[in-house]
């Protein structure tokens, strides 16, 4: 049998592709070791159709009220404490009314109101732009409304940061570990090059615990099922005048703010 160079290359090329294809096919078909019947949700998990927060700003009076909540969240989630606002990482933090609700401030508003601090975090939007743009489904919306991050899958393209109109997302511009003073051994850290944000304490809900910020807020932050008319959050929303951030964009934030009024029955 004789063949010229061109034929030889063709045959080797095709057989290589077939070989690789066959191996890939067999690997793809191989069953995963964990069967669907082998996994189940934890029995103690708190469940909802759509989780949401109501933040009563009248309960946040002192600096300590803010730092306590922030510390509770950041310490259990191993959020690094980076002292550079350009590359810092934050899951929950405070900002003034003027900057939290841009366009809602008015010229003659009292300075105290403009500068009044608000607790800011991921809004867990019902219609999240970050989820829409993510090219790998690394950020996705769970059936209970939580906008989750799968840090294993994130490729660090930062499309979600451009898409989020709330500045809720932080990127690990370097290894976060040197900036975590006392790591919580029960929770992972993140690695360089991934985006992170508040995850509504999904790991605590699974154990039947409240989100950490709720517990630390001493009643300032209430969480519950927005789709359950009898829930505490719904009761608060129907009883008080509440505002949400940038409603005009249609993302439907799940975080409601009660601004003033000292009564919170």
């Amino acid at each position, binding site marked *: 049998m004789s063949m010229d160079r061109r034929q030889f290359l063709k045959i080797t090329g095709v057989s290589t592709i077939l070989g690789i294809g066959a191996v890939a096919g067999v690997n793809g078909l191989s069953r995963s070791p964990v069967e669907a019947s082998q996994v189940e949700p934890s029995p103690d998990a708190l469940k909802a159709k759509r989780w949401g927060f109501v933040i009563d700003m009248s309960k946040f009076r002192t600096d300590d009220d803010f730092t306590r909540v922030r510390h509770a969240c950041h310490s259990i989630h191993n959020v690094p404490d980076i002292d550079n606002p*350009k*590359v*810092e990482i934050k899951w929950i933090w405070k900002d003034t009314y003027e900057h939290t609700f841009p366009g809602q401030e008015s010229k003659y508003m009292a300075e105290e109101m403009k500068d009044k601090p608000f607790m800011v975090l991921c809004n867990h939007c019902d219609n999240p732009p970050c989820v829409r743009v993510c090219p790998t489904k690394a950020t996705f919306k769970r059936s209970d409304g939580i906008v989750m991050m799968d840090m294993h899958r994130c490729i660090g393209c930062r499309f979600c940061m451009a898409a989020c109109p709330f*500045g809720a997302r932080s*990127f690990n*511009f370097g*290894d976060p570990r040197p900036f975590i003073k006392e790591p919580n051994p029960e929770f992972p850290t993140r*690695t*360089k*090059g991934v985006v992170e944000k508040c995850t509504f304490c999904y790991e605590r809900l699974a154990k039947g615990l409240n989100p950490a910020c709720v517990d630390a807020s001493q009643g300032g932050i209430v969480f519950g099922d927005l789709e359950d008319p009898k829930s505490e959050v719904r009761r608060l929303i129907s009883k008080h005048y509440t505002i949400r951030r940038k409603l005009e964009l249609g993302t439907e934030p799940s975080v409601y703010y009660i601004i003033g009024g000292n009564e919170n029955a």
Partner: protein
Amino acid sequence: MLEKALSGGKGYWAWIFLLLAIIGTGFACYLMQFNYGLGITGMSRDVSWGFYIAQFTFLVGVAASAVMMVIPYYLHDYKTFGRVVILGEFLAIASVIMCMLFIFCDMGQPTRVMNVILHPTPNSVMFWDMLVLSGYLALNLVIGWTTLGADRKELPPPSWVKPFIYLSVPWAVSIHTVTAFLYAGLPGRHLWLTAIMAARFLSSAFAAGPALLILLAMIVRKVSKFDPGKEAIQSLAKIVTYAMCVNVFFLLLEVFTAFYSKIPGEMAPIKYLFVGLEGHTRLVPFMRTASVLAIGGIALLVYPNTRKNESILPFSLIAVFIACWIDKGMGLVVGGFVPNPFERVVEYSPTVPELLITLGVYGIGALALTILYKVAVSVREETEAGDIQEGWHGSGH
């Protein structure tokens, strides 16, 4: 045909080694970035895309602009572009390669790049961008290589390549439209949330791309015996003129909408770019330079005497090219992030390693372009020499 790139004069090899040195420097900086993370760049949580994505966006336009030669030549049988169309297709290849490299350089977790294919997500524009860019690269490789190969044998291109050529026309438009959609569908980024984003992208692409191509053709004419022809250059210059006028017109439409409606969010990024916002003016000198260059370039191009004068033409083209590069690169990307979602101004400027990595990617693009052009020019020189010494062509196949 690739072997043609392996023979060249002293100047050719000096140029190749210069490019390799630039690429090497860029690669060393990239290793630094790979080890440390994107913190070695000037990007921040507020301006989360920077110089890399700016170059990516601009170069998609340069790649798409090959269509400005493909349409007249293949669809309207405009023979004048017969020599220049291959240069356009090869420029597209080099540009798409650079686009992909810039995306790769911008990734926080580059080793996970295959996740985009392993977990395909059709609702993400980035997924589609990956598809159309790799498709466009493949199309131009197939078309360019086949037509050049046929040329070498002095045969018309095989008929099976025709459908691919026709497909490349809408495909070129698609790569830039999809790239515009990366920006134009994001709520809360006022500069980007505009329906004419894709149209603006295409107009600036059809100005900057052919402008670069003419400049390259002039260089090719200087360093080789291959002459794309005076008429082809003039036709392309007209395309640049019209496209640049439309590009500036579109920008003025944006300015009108923002400043007549007086919606603060619409005005803020434009103010930031051209006059500064809350005392932050880092981009103002660049945007003003771009404005001056755009107006000057258009003036020199619109006036026939200066357009036809080939010693003035390069300067007008350089002016147009730089104006587009500033406006559609840094201006567009950084302007979209300023002010940030909290209406604060956080500024951005690239760091030295970031610039060197960028330069390295341009080096890779220039190397790819040099090799492709060397092949194209050698083939053309060969066939033209063959035309003179009758019956002699196609040695050693």
